[in-house]
């Protein structure tokens, strides 16, 4: 049995240690928000966080996730109210939406590390593929979410 901490919940799964985390999430635990796009860590549709760091779960063996904190798209907020999610809706980012779980996970991780990202920061952190071509809106939404965070930080200080 492999013990996992996913979105704060303890889960136990009886699978091969080399099974990628993606397929444990999708097929064993029926958590479908994390997507399969390429299987070779190229597209980022399967991005989740391990201890807050973005990881491509299609190429990450489940055994390596044991004892770590795994966060998926289902775990970043309770009511879609994470500033990144709010900005994504505000700027009408998704088209087909399939890559957006991964894009959002990448953006959340970026903003945690760099609360005021420059365009160059966004370029280097956001390497996920979107075939619909929503990049311009992703960029705008990341800047908007950063502004929201700054506003919240200011309000907390005051």
């Amino acid at each position, binding site marked *: 049995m492999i013990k996992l901490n996913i979105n704060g919940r303890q889960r136990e799964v009886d699978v091969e240690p080399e099974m990628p985390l993606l397929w444990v999430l*999708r097929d064993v635990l029926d958590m*479908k*928000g994390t997507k399969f796009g*390429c299987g*070779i860590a190229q597209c980022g549709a399967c991005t989740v966080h391990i201890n807050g760091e973005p990881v491509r779960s299609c190429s990450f063996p489940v055994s390596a996730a044991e004892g770590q904190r795994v966060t998926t798209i289902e775990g970043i907020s309770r009511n879609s109210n994470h500033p990144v999610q709010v900005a994504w809706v505000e700027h009408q980012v*998704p088209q087909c*939406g399939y890559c957006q779980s991964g894009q*959002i996970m990448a953006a959340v991780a970026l903003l945690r590390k760099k609360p005021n990202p420059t365009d160059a920061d966004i370029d280097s952190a956001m390497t996920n*593929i979107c075939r619909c071509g929503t990049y311009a809106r992703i960029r705008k939404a990341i800047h908007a979410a950063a502004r929201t965070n700054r506003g919240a930080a200011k309000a907390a200080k005051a």
Partner: protein
Amino acid sequence: MKNASFKQSRRDFLANSVAATGGLAIGMHIPSAVAQKTGVLEGAEVNIWVVVNPDESVVIRYARSEMGQGSMTSAPQLVAEELDVDWRKVRIEYADTNRHVRLKRAWGDMATVGSRTIRTSQDYLRKGGAAARMMLVSAAAQQWGVPPGECTAAGGVITHAASRRRTTYGKVAAAAAKLDPPKDIALKDPKDWKIAGKSLRRIDIPASVNGAQRYGVDTQLPGMVYAAITKSPVFGGKVKSFDDSRVKTRRGIIKVMTVEGDAVAVVADNWWRAKEALKDVQVDWDTGANGGVSSTSLLEFFKAGLAAPEAALLPNRKGDAEKAIAGASKVLEAEYFTPFLAHAPMEPLGATVHIQQGGRVDVWASTQSGEAMLAGVANVLGVPTDNVYFHKTQAGGGFGRRSFPDFARQAALIARSMPVGTPVKLLWSREEDMQQDNYRPLAMYRLKAGIDASGHVVAWTTRIASGSLAAQLLNLPLKNGVDGPATEGFAEFPYEVPNQRHEYIQRRTHVPIGFWRTVGWSQSPFAREGFIDELARAAGRDPYELRREMLKDEKRPLGVLDAAAKAAGWGRPLPKGVFRGIATTEPYGSFTAAVVELSVDGKGGVKLHRVVQAIDCGYAVNPDNIVAQIEGSSVWALTAAMWGEITVKDGRIEQGNFDTYRLLRMREMPKVEVVIAPTGGFWGGVGEPGQAPFIPAMTNAILAATGKPVRSLPLKNQGFTLV
């Protein structure tokens, strides 16, 4: 609809609603945006487009697919506009495919292709909304004993001003549903629109930001098994035999089987186990005669098509092009090449099929054509279409690939081989998706033109050598030997040239071909608009001014060209080293033009400084969605321009995943400005037209920068990189 058929349809409707809730009970997640089906049971179906619930919420049916193009929002906007309902109370659900087929296609065309959703259904969508409103008003008027003409409707409320009486849609819907539909339906003038024409937020987006959106590949049913598949890597090949001795006893492996004679599938209790096992199944393929085909041999075959003495003549011939070229003061000739391309939607292909005792078949998949899926599965299983229930989901991109049910047929055959009642989910790997696509046809163009002494283009000839989607994919006869999609851009040649002749010659390949976003318009403008710039250069003319002269009576192409040029500031000085290119096109009922500003460094590094895109789509139903589609089309086009190519070696495709089929990423995204310039009076497409002018505008800017025309794609093969 007459009463008899209406009763029939209502019964079917209830039956299907029960079926739908049954689907929920067995574990299928339905996206929140369409999860209101449970409420529908109490509601009144005023007509097939509109269901009004007692709580005043309204369900509007959507008959096409949603794959990111946004028409699941914009099409219902047209219904809601005429219905005069409060948009906040509207829920949208997919029209049921099974009922649609039994009602002889009551919802019109379900195929989501050709940028057609708005332009070919706007009339019946608006009339559907208006008819429902008229029936609701009539029902209220009958209850009050007043003429319907004295009543007004707004925001779901019906008012009889003279007697100061008011009621709501929810209160009269049951009575309205029993009325005959009206015969004469007047539609609003678009200038009075309050819901249509507005940038309303897309209804599917909230579910796309929290992981709740369910795509075909997300289907999960109790007792479901998973299949991975590999089809003959050489198209047309067959399975001779396979050896599964290395995988049979592995954990979770249920069976290994041949599918349709040309593929091998592994069925397991988990998809990863199936996919891993498939790698270790040794398949002996009979590749047939196609194992020797390569990109080089294909190129020779297409070049021979350009040189062949005979070809099919397009009907728009004018004057005597050969004679005029002979007498011209300057003659230009050029050959253009565009490669095969793969669709590569982010959601890989797949389908889930559940065959039950008693013969009912349920299918879940992301599709562009619910009808094609239903028919394809019924056909391969040999069951009546009435028995097949297709469950439409959001599609993770489609771009033309999902119009055909090949993957659902495979899933159905695997499901039939399992004990009755076992649901099977087939999922293709990315490599399978890349290597078993139906590809954008390879095409070559030979263009020749003559310019007179004063710099006017007096003659033009075109020879197109390309696959025929009509003949090769759809098995349709060609009219006078001419394929429609392959000749897009030349069949409707908008330029005023007194002597012109355009020809087409079919090149049938063993490589399967398909409709790829923007189809012929994704490739022919590269040749047509590129050659215009070559002519302008030869004649010493400004390429924008030359186009204006040659489009003199073409009001709309000229209008959109001017809109793009004006927004870009054509003619204004640019920073040193920056050059402009322009192009104009007329795809799918719309008119689009683009201006690209770029610089090219000494090593062939292309830097895009600015992209301006303009569209005249007649009426703009959801402007922000149009902007999104044109932004996305620009990415699609830039990706194809820089890197897109599918090549063939030993009869098989050389690319396999995103490491060998490069797609554009964030750091390469240029700034795109979109000008929506709707002139009204017609309905044009939106999902594809933005791609058409982009590549030639870009390559024309490269011509301006380097002095050398670009005649072959992708640009990476011509020594260019994207900076």
